[in-house]
């Protein structure tokens, strides 16, 4: 019983943060599946969502600020794609990645400028920020809600992709960009929708994440973003269930590492995992191999 009491909080924290990473990583995996682009700015969009909430909730009631945050984040994601990625679609791969890095740099600097560099406190969202005791371990309700919500959203998304016309279009575009265009798929709509979904999930993720780790800084998005990307690579780029699995794995493992006392390495674990995956099975758990035609 003592064992559970000391270690359960870490496992729960792991599942919770894993779910939050999952919501971010889906955005990465979807965008990479379609555009072959690592959207370096995605983690920072997550951070901006956090700040939006901080500022909006200061003057608006929560039932207004939450939907506004979601709307704002989705708009931002869509805008970034339109302005920074679409013009470079024909450019060599490195250019669009550099653009993504540039957007990330811009978002972080803007956040720094607006907030003056001080960490901001995230507002407590009633109910999910309250404490609850599970098997004699104390934690917040958000820790329980996150995995459930994540599962539900992922299931909804997978259904969308498998059973709707748009979903089919997305799958087609990620298999063969040019041919899909030739077959009449409206590429811009598909890509726009991908970014909208990704940003939507990132916004939800930020609501949950910052309810737990309540301090928001301009660099709050980089680590979760990178970890979410590793989760996507682990699960197999382009596979949404894979990304979710990878995210939970990373969340749980990094908290177990903290539990064992190796806190300095909890972040490094994610990168070690990345490198192992890239060397052993670069296509990830559920990914597919591609052969170049010469």
């Amino acid at each position, binding site marked *: 019983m003592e064992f559970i009491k000391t270690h359960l909080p870490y496992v729960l924290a792991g599942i919770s943060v894993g779910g939050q990473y999952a919501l971010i990583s889906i955005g990465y995996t979807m965008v990479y599946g379609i555009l072959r682009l690592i959207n370096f700015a995605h983690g920072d969009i997550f951070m901006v969502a956090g700040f939006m909430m901080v500022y909006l909730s200061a003057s608006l009631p929560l039932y207004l600020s939450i939907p506004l945050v979601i709307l704002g984040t989705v708009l931002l994601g869509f805008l970034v794609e339109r302005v920074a990625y679409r013009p470079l679609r024909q*450019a060599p791969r490195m250019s669009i990645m550099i*653009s993504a890095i540039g957007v990330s*740099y811009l978002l972080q600097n803007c956040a*720094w400028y607006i907030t003056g560099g001080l960490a901001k406190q995230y507002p407590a969202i009633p109910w999910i920020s309250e404490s609850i005791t599970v098997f004699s371990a104390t934690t917040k309700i958000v820790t329980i809600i996150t995995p459930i919500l994540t599962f539900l959203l992922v299931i909804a998304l997978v259904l969308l992709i498998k059973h709707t016309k748009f979903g089919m279009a997305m799958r087609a575009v990620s298999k063969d960009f040019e041919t899909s265009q030739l077959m009449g798929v409206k590429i811009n709509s598909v890509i726009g929708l991908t970014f909208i979904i990704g940003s939507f999930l990132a916004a939800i993720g930020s609501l949950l994440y910052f309810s737990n780790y309540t301090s928001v800084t301009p660099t709050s998005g980089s680590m979760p973003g990178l970890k979410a990307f590793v989760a996507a690579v682990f699960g197999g780029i382009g596979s949404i269930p894979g990304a979710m699995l990878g995210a939970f794995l990373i969340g749980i493992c990094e908290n177990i590492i903290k539990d064992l006392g190796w806190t*300095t390495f909890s972040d490094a674990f994610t990168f070690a995992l990345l490198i192992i995956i890239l060397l052993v099975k670069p296509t990830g758990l559920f990914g597919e191999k591609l052969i170049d035609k010469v």
Partner: protein
Amino acid sequence: MKKALMTLIPIALLYILLFVLEQILPASSMLFVVLKKGAIYSLLAVSMNLLNGFTGLFSLGHAGFMLIGAYTYAILTIPLEARPSVYQYFDGGIIQFTLPVFVAIIASGIVTAVLAYLIGLPILRLKSDYLAIATLGFAEIIRAIFQWDKLGPVTNGSNLLRSFPIFKSVLFPFTVAGLCITLIVLLINSSYGRAFKAIRDDEIAAEAMGVNLAKHKQLAFTISSFFVGIGGALLAMYQTTVQAAPFRASMTYEILLIVVIGGMGSISGSCLSSFLFIACSEWWLRFLDRVTFIGSFKVPLLASGFRKVVFSVVIMIIVLFYRQGIMGTKEFSLDALYKFFEKRSIKKHKGEDLAE
């Protein structure tokens, strides 16, 4: 022979100019900050360009290698008397010898190169996006390792390293960076440089023409990292203290952006862009960060952090509209400059003739 003279004379003139400036301007002048930091960043940018711009290997591990170079230099040169106070939490540390400055600088390069070689063995065969993330990952792992308390006796854990020899004159970083950049230029213009460029342009064709991909990618990676290590050592000397925490991915991004602005594939572009970048960020655009009043009217937008916002916007503009950067893949040469002015005066004269 003539070409060598043509390059040596401007360099000699530059040296004389710098020397004179140091005599007449106060040491705290911003100009020297820009020159010193600019020289160091030039080396860092050129070595990144060697890897990313000339060989086409998208590596984001720069910060990690700079860290290794900086630490190697500091660890090897802290004078014995200072060690107990620097390593105060680790009983003076286990390294109880000091090396002369130049030996330590070269050691920084070698240690970094060796590590780069080991890291490169498994990851260089990855595709460009995955290579980027893998190198980024390694840089973060390196940063975590250097902050690890258990390695404190060597690295001082998360405490900073200080008291190591530094430089005063701007001629020092210029000389070291200049020598390194010269070596890189020689490499680029050699047969191996051609092989690197071929790999960038078309890997499959390069291999078909007999260029062993693994070996040459390793060469580019290792050599670039050697110079990054030296750049890290110079940075340590400039900053006078070394700590692992600031060597984050954002440091790599800044250098990458400098390279992009200057033009991937142009060495003179990287140097020019480094100086511009440092001049703007440390000196000329500082006013953007100051809250300014005209009379009682507060100028909007000017506040701390605005400078970086302006930067980011400028960088985005260049990335989106001027992808070639300032120099593209061309190099600066007095010949080209002369021809440029010649063309303009011909056009001008033509215009005058037509007008008559």
